[in-house]
């Protein structure tokens, strides 16, 4: 990394540490666009992170996540907490663009001194989050946010990234979104530490609660935290103070039961293994240029004249041999 860039990063980090909003937003842009930058920034701010409590909010589109996020943030502000919000929306797989529309529900937070909001597109990653979400959370952590809310793309059956990233995960349901089977599909409800039925003022809200309770009875509980089922009407703010209280309860449970530490350990482990893989790969690719070799062979492979799995095995073995012999290609 050249010295100008390095100095620029330090300058921005200095700004982040004193809560300068422009420094925060500029640093996030830098890491969003460059994956190597993410690792470098993560490295430099590491000792300033680890304090914020991370809350994940997920649920189908239209369930009121953004409105609820905004109301929760206001409650937190009222308690004197500093809040970071990462709002993720889906990027078009065709154009790469996105409409990031979560802020529209949080207009009254725009001028609050202790709220930091960043809207992001998923930019090609499945799972509901974008590659830059973790580093954005770290940056908010470093600028001393007490709570960070990650609001994700509407959870489908495969979008469970949020459960691994957040300390407390909220799954939001609403009445009238189709038949019961939708909700029973594995994965969605299992990741919820707190289940919320929003738009509780609508018909069918109580039925949704009953259904969730029934499912809980039938399900095996894996830990001794039984996810509470709460009703809210985010638009009016009804039920939001109780929801915040439930989040605090979950936090206390996690700290007392040791679950907090073990989950964070798992998360760190996964992140580091990913980092190791990427770093090794980058170095080896730079040295041995296998991607270029692969480009020339794809046709052979697709027409079944060459076996790609053999190629991978042979390439790895030959790299290792070359490293042993101290040769360079």
């Amino acid at each position, binding site marked *: 990394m050249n010295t100008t860039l390095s100095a620029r990063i330090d300058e921005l980090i200095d700004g982040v540490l004193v809560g300068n*909003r*422009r420094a925060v*937003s*500029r640093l*996030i*842009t830098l890491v*969003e*666009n460059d994956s190597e930058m993410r690792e470098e920034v993560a490295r430099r701010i590491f000792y300033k992170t680890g304090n914020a409590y991370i809350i994940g909010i997920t649920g189908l589109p239209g369930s009121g996540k953004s409105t609820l996020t905004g109301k929760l943030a206001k409650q937190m502000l009222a308690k004197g907490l500093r809040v970071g919000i990462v709002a993720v929306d889906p*990027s*078009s797989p065709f*154009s*790469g*663009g*996105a*409409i*990031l*529309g979560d*802020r*529209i529900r949080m*207009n009254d937070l*725009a*001028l609050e001194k202790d709220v*930091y*909001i*960043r*809207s*992001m*597109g998923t*930019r090609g990653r499945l799972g509901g989050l974008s590659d830059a979400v973790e580093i954005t959370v770290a940056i908010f952590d470093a600028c001393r946010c007490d709570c960070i809310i990650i609001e994700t793309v509407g959870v489908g059956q495969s979008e469970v990234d949020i459960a691994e990233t957040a300390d407390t995960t909220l799954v939001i349901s609403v009445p009238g979104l189709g038949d019961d089977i939708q909700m029973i599909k594995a994965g969605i409800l299992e990741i919820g530490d707190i289940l919320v039925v929003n738009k509780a003022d609508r018909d069918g809200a109580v039925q949704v609660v009953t259904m969730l309770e029934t499912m809980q009875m039938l399900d095996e509980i894996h830990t001794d935290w039984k996810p509470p089922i709460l009703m809210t009407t985010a638009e009016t703010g009804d039920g939001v103070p109780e929801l915040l209280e439930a989040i605090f309860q979950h936090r206390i449970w996690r700290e007392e039961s040791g679950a907090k530490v073990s989950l964070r350990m798992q998360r760190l482990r996964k992140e580091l293994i990913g980092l190791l893989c990427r770093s090794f790969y980058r170095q080896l690719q730079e040295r041995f240029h296998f991607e270029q070799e692969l480009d020339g062979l794809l046709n052979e492979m697709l027409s079944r004249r060459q076996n790609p799995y053999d190629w991978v095995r042979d390439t790895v073995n030959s790299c290792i041999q070359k490293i042993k012999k101290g040769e360079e290609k």
Partner: protein
Amino acid sequence: MTIRVLVAKPGLDGHDRGAKVIASAMRDAGFEVIYTGLRQTPEQIAAAATAEDVDVVAMSLLSGAHNSLFPRVLECLKKMDGGDILVIGGGVIPESDIPNLKKQGIAEIFTPGTPTSAVIEFIKKVMAERGKI
């Protein structure tokens, strides 16, 4: 690098179709578009623009208040360290008002009937000049 745009509707103008059309077109062109909805104050627009570190603020105004609101947005942007953000406008804006708005710092005004592609090409051109793409 993905271009980020804030589509903003300052003041009391309630017509949002134009803003939504341009937002969709920009998304189809690969931009990330943040739309904050109706009835935004200049302070809210500048706060959102700088918090989201957008490259462009695109304001849509059909109520005729552009001569007072557009410069106020520029002022707020400057105050919040967002003076480097490209600001463009569109809507019901008489040709005769355009030179003055440009002098104050609005990079371009796109009047009704302009194809969305013209707006997108303009943004891409400026971003390329700034070395961003």
